C-alpha cells in the first residue's frame, strides 16, 4: 500500500460534493487530486444488489423446499438450511457492506496527459489511457442510474485487451463534461 493511496483514503474527494467549479477542475485536470465516484452510486449498487439477492434467495428457498420434499426434515435438510443462512449472510454483506468498500477503493483522475482509473479491493487495477489514444467515448445510463442522475462513461481505445474501459458512478453532468473533454483529444479514428 503506498502513501498516495492511504492519503486518498483519509481524504476522499466525493464528486457529489463538488461545486461546479471543482467539478470543472476535475474535468480540466488537476494532476494531484484523485476523485472518488459520486456517493449516490453506493445506493444504486445497493439497490441493484438487493434485486439480485432477492432473486437468489427466492431460488435458494425453492431449492430448500425441494430438499424438504424429497428428504423430509432430515440431516440433509438441516445442512441445506445452514447453507441457506450462510448464503443469506453473504448476500447481506454483498448488498449492504461491499458497495461501500468498493466505493472507497475506486478513484479516477484526469490530468493533462491521461485518464487514470484505480479500482479493485483485493485485485488492484490502475489503468492509464493516454489522452491521444481515446478513439471515442460515450455516456450511458440505465433506468436506475437515470433515477439517481448518474452515468457510466465508456472510453474506447484501439487496443485489444482493454479496448473498452468503463468509468462508473459519475454524476451524469460530470460524465458528459469528461466525455467532451476526452473527445476533444480524439482527433481521428484511424489507427496507424
Amino acid at each position: 500500500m503506498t502513501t498516495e493511496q492511504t492519503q486518498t483514503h483519509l481524504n476522499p474527494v466525493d464528486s457529489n460534493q463538488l461545486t461546479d467549479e471543482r467539478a470543472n477542475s476535475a474535468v480540466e485536470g488537476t494532476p494531484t487530486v484523485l476523485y472518488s465516484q459520486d456517493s449516490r452510486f453506493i445506493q444504486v449498487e445497493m439497490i441493484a444488489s438487493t434485486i439480485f439477492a432477492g432473486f437468489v434467495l427466492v431460488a435458494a428457498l425453492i431449492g430448500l423446499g425441494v430438499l424438504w420434499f424429497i428428504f423430509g426434515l432430515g440431516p440433509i435438510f438441516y445442512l441445506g438450511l445452514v447453507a441457506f443462512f450462510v448464503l443469506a449472510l453473504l448476500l447481506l454483506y454483498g448488498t449492504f457492506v461491499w458497495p461501500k468498500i468498493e466505493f472507497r477503493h475506486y478513484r479516477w483522475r484526469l490530468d493533462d496527459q491521461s485518464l487514470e482509473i484505480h479500482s479493485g479491493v483485493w485485485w488492484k487495477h490502475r489503468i492509464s489511457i493516454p489522452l491521444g489514444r481515446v478513439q471515442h467515448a460515450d455516456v450511458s445510463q440505465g433506468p436506475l442510474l437515470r433515477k439517481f442522475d448518474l452515468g457510466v462513461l465508456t472510453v474506447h481505445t484501439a487496443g485489444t485487451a482493454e479496448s473498452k474501459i468503463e468509468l462508473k458512478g459519475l454524476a451524469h453532468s460530470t460524465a458528459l463534461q469528461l466525455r467532451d473533454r476526452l473527445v476533444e483529444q480524439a482527433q481521428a479514428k484511424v489507427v496507424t
Partner: protein
Amino acid sequence: MSASGLPPVVEEPVERLHRLHWSSLLFDALSQIRSLVVPAIFALLGAARGDSFWIYISLIFLGPALLYSVFRYATLSFRISHGQLVIKQGLIFRNVRSVPVERIQNIDFVQNLLHRALGVAEVRVETAAGSEPEATLRVLSLEQVERLRSEVFESRHAAEPRAFNVGVSDGVGLEAGSFSEESSATQAANSPTTSLVLQIPLSWLIYAGLASNRGTILIGVVAGSIYEFKLFKRLDIEKFADWLPQNLDHWFLAGVVALGFLVLLLILRMVSVAWYILRFSNYRLERRNDDLRVSCGLTTKVQATVPRRRVQFISVHRNLLMRFWRLASVRIETAGSGAGHDDASKSVSSRWFIPVVTEDRLAEVLREIRPDLVWNENEFQFKPMAARAVTRRVRFAVLVSLVFAAVGFFVWKPWGALVGAILLPILVLAAILSTRALQYARTEQGVVFRSGVLIRKTSMTFFEKIQSIEFQQSPLDRRWGMAKLSVDTAAAGPAEHKIEVPLLDASLAMNEQVEIKQLAAMHQPVYR
C-alpha cells in the same frame, strides 16, 4: 484524414467495367465444395459402403451452391469511378460496395498451383480499418490484376496528388508518385524506390525447418486417419508379431525402439523442413518507400504488403535450436489485421513475417521496419525483476508438488506420494528458469519484454502505439510487494506474446506506469 469520397476536380480516368475471370466459376465451385467437406466425407464413406444416401444429400447441398457460383459470376462487376472502387453484385437484391480509393492500403494476392496454371490470382483489397479484407475478388486474370492496380493507383494519384503511402504492384505495374508525409528525413521519399531488404536462401529454410516442430502436424494427420479408417482393426498385430524373430535380447529390443524413435523424430523434422520450403521458398522482403512487401511460396505464391507505419509490435522468437544456430524469426502485428483471421497472405504479413533470419542480419532488417529502431538486445537496459521473484515462484512450485504428493498419497498409499517427489525438482527448475528468463526494459522508442525458456520471445512495442497501461496487483502480489505491468496495443494476437510483465517490484512498476504514460502522451500517433 483527407477529404474522402469527394469527386476529384481533375478529369475523370476512363471508366471501365470489369468482370471476374471465367475460371472464377471453377474456383468458386471448388471453395463451395471445400466448405461442404463434411457431407462430402460422409458421401464418400457411404459410397464405399455401397450406400448412396449421402451422395444424394450432398448433391442437394451442392446443386444450389454451384448455382450460386454461376449467379455470382454472372452478376459481379467492378469499376473505378469518382475515386471509388465500386463492386456491384446481385440482380434482385443488389449489393453495391464502394471503397474510397485513397483509403486502399494494398492489393494483395494469393496464387496456388491451379491459379498459376490458368494465369489467374485471388485478390484482396484492403483498407486500414477493419480486420477483414474490404473486398475479395476471386479470381482475376493477372492482366486484370495489373489493370486494377494501375487504375486504383492512377485514380488515387489523380484524386489526391499528395497521396501518402501507395503500395503498388510488383515491379511490372505502374508506380504512383507517393509523397509520404511522415517518412523520415533520411529517406528520399519523393521518388518510389524499391530496395531488397531480405532474401531467404534455401539453407536457412532447412535449418529453420529442422529447428521447428511443424512436423508434429503429421502425427495428428496419421493418428486421425488411423482412427478414421479403423486401421487398428485391419492391421493384424498378432501376425506382425509372428514375423519377428523369437527370443530377442531385451537390450536389442530397447535399441530398436530407440532407433525407431530417432527415425520418427527425423521424419517429423523432415516434414517441417518440407513445410518451410513449400511455404517460404523465394522469400523476398522488399521496401518501397513506406511499404514493406513480402512475397514467397513454392507452389502457392503469396504477396502481401504492410505499410510500415502500421506495425504496432515486433516480436523476435528463437527456440533452443535456433539459438544454437544463431537464427531468429520475426513476427509483427499491424493495425487492421484481425487476430484469428489467418489466411495465407495475412499470416505472411504477421505470424510468418520473417520466418527465419540470421542473428547478424536481424538488426539491419528490423531497421527497415522502423528507421529509428536500434535493435541490440545486449544494449537494452533490462530492469531486474523483484528481488524475491524467484523465491516466490519456487515456493509456489514446492506448494504445488506438496499438494500433488498429498493427493497422490491418499489415492494410492504410499507410492502415490512419489508423484510429488518427481514433480518437485521439475517444477522448481522450471520456476527458477522461467523467472530468470523474464526481462523488461524501456528504450528510447518503446517497451521491451522478454520471456520464455525453450522458446525465447523478445517483443517490443512503441510509445506511440501504446493504447493503455495497466498496473495490477493480486492479494499475493501485495504480500510480496510485487505487481504486474501490462501494455495494450492494437491488434495484439498473432505474435503470441503480450507485454505483460509479472513479478516486478511494486514501486518500480508504479513508477514505470507513470513514465510510460508520459512518454506515450508525448509520442502522439500520426493519424491520416
